[in-house]
């Protein structure tokens, strides 16, 4: 069995703060997980959960208080390993006095590429992220979404084996998100390993082979989006309208939106409920299954955390 693409062992990061740095705030606590070769891995958590911290630790931008991590079998302190890694920082920003083509060329120079190869790759990347018309414009005139595209281009410019993206969808319009999604799927098709963080769950559900959920600096679960959540039907949802006023007891547990009511009942009570509603003169609009989603799993964790009063990290900064 080959080495996993990313191995993280007991990774912990504490930030000292306060007077004389005597107090400590834990941003990441004993994170252990693996990302297999060729997987698309989603790293999910609310803002400030420790996603960016983990990614920055992996990229050697900050140093762990404890624990270690390996990428492609090499320790993260090994600079040469970066030849095979692409990284998109959160809210990327680049030298604003350069044009998109220049900044990509600059980054390409750190890899051993010939001038012709560099030019070819820069052109291809600009086309891929849809910036070929803006290539000669200085980055100071770029919008947030355009910068995100430049960031994506520089992350995959050198044909890396592992691509780590920090919030790749943020700041993008629906079209942009669609394009990023396509790029990630394309990378997967090419056999690359992709790890990306997001707080938008639908992205993770549709793209990822596996996801890891992190809340409050702790990993709460890792697995395929399907296995992570119990996919059994939680119940049935009935959507109906009332044609005349009524005081059926069921109504008290229904939620009203405009003229429309929604009622959730266990599967075995579905028919009884429909009978009752019809008796009250209700018009049934639809009946559908309710499944647990990643979102609910996620929300439950956050809720549980809050209930415990455990400190959800204030900030990753």
């Amino acid at each position, binding site marked *: 069995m080959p080495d996993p693409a990313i191995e993280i062992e007991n990774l912990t990061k504490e930030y000292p703060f306060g007077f004389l740095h005597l107090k400590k705030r834990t941003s990441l606590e004993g994170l252990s997980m693996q990302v297999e070769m060729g997987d698309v891995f989603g790293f999910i958590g609310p803002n400030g959960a420790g996603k960016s911290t983990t990614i920055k630790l992996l990229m*050697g931008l900050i*140093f762990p208080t404890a624990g270690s991590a390996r990428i492609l079998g090499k*320790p993260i*302190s*090994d*600079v040469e390993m970066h030849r095979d890694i692409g990284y998109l920082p959160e809210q990327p920003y680049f030298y604003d006095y350069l044009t998109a083509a220049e900044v990509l060329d600059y980054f390409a120079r750190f890899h051993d590429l010939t001038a012709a190869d560099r030019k070819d790759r820069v052109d291809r990347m600009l086309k891929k992220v849809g910036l070929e018309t803006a290539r000669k414009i200085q980055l100071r005139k770029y919008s947030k979404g355009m910068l995100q595209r430049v960031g994506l281009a520089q992350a995959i410019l050198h044909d890396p084996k592992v691509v780590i993206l920090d919030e790749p969808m943020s700041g993008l319009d629906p079209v942009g998100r669609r394009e990023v999604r396509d790029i990630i799927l394309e990378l997967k098709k090419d056999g690359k390993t992709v790890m990306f963080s997001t707080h938008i769950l639908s992205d993770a559900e549709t793209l990822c082979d596996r996801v890891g959920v992190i809340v409050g600096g702790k990993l709460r679960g890792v697995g395929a989006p399907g296995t992570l959540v119990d996919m059994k039907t939680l119940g049935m949802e009935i959507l109906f309208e009332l044609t005349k006023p009524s005081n059926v007891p069921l109504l008290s547990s229904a939620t009203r939106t405009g003229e429309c009511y929604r009622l959730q009942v266990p599967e075995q009570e579905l028919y009884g409920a429909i009978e009752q509603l019809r008796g009250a003169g209700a018009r049934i609009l639809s009946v559908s299954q309710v499944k647990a989603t990643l979102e609910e799993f996620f929300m439950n964790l956050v809720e549980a955390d809050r209930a415990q009063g455990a400190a959800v990290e204030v900030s990753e900064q």
Partner: protein
Amino acid sequence: MKSEKSIAWLLLFVVPLGFAGIWRMQRRIDAERASITEERDEVLLRSPKLVKAMSLEYAPLLADIYWTRVVQYYGNKHLRGQANLDLLWPLLDISTALDPNLVIAYRFGAMFLSQAAPGGAGRPDLAVQLIQRGIQANPEYWRLYEDLGFVYYFDLKDYQKASAAFLEGSKKPNALVWMKIMAAKVAAEGESFETSLFLWKDIYDTSADPSVKKNALMHLQLLTVKEDCKQLDALADEYAKRYGKRPSRMSDLVQAGLVRGIPRDPLGFAYVFGASEKTELNLDSPLLEKQLMIERFRKYVP
């Protein structure tokens, strides 16, 4: 992390080796520069008015800086035994113009501007000018009158004016009572051993400045030597009267019962009779060099 550690190790070597190299190179550069630049102490701005105008609201601070330069300048020159103290006056002039209440500068100036070379600049006229300016700015400070009297007494030998200065000072608040006595004594006797001794001793006891103190101590010692020599010569005359010949060495005086034990200078070196049959300092005494230096310069000073 790996690269981190290697850099930290590198630092352990680079810092000591590097600074050892820096030390050697700096010495070479110093030597090289010393050979190409002649000694130049320059006071760039000699106009106190201009300096004051440029100092904005920081004149007192600037005065302190100039004052430090004075001490440094004097210390350097003195250390190398150089007699040329041309810049002492402009530096003091600027310091006191910037801060007229910088009393220490007037007092220092009185001492070292007036004193003959090599100890001072040999300009008692400028010293008087400086002190008079000091008195104008600090009329209640009696010590400045003491200094004025001092300059008149020692360097200008004008005992009338010295007496007047002591008398004027004695009327100021807190003036010590000896000022009045000194005024009378100087007016009556002119220069005398007691007066000189007293004045130097007062300077030595009251000054905090190490240069001033050292200078006063030297003068006290030389003054004592001068007086000792005078008395020993008198004793030698007495000996000659008794025995019909001059004593050839100090032990003759002891044997004759004229002195008790071999007389010694303030540093503990025995006095000797020189070729001229007068009492002289021992060749080994460090005071001899100072005495000769002062005498030699005195010849050149008009």
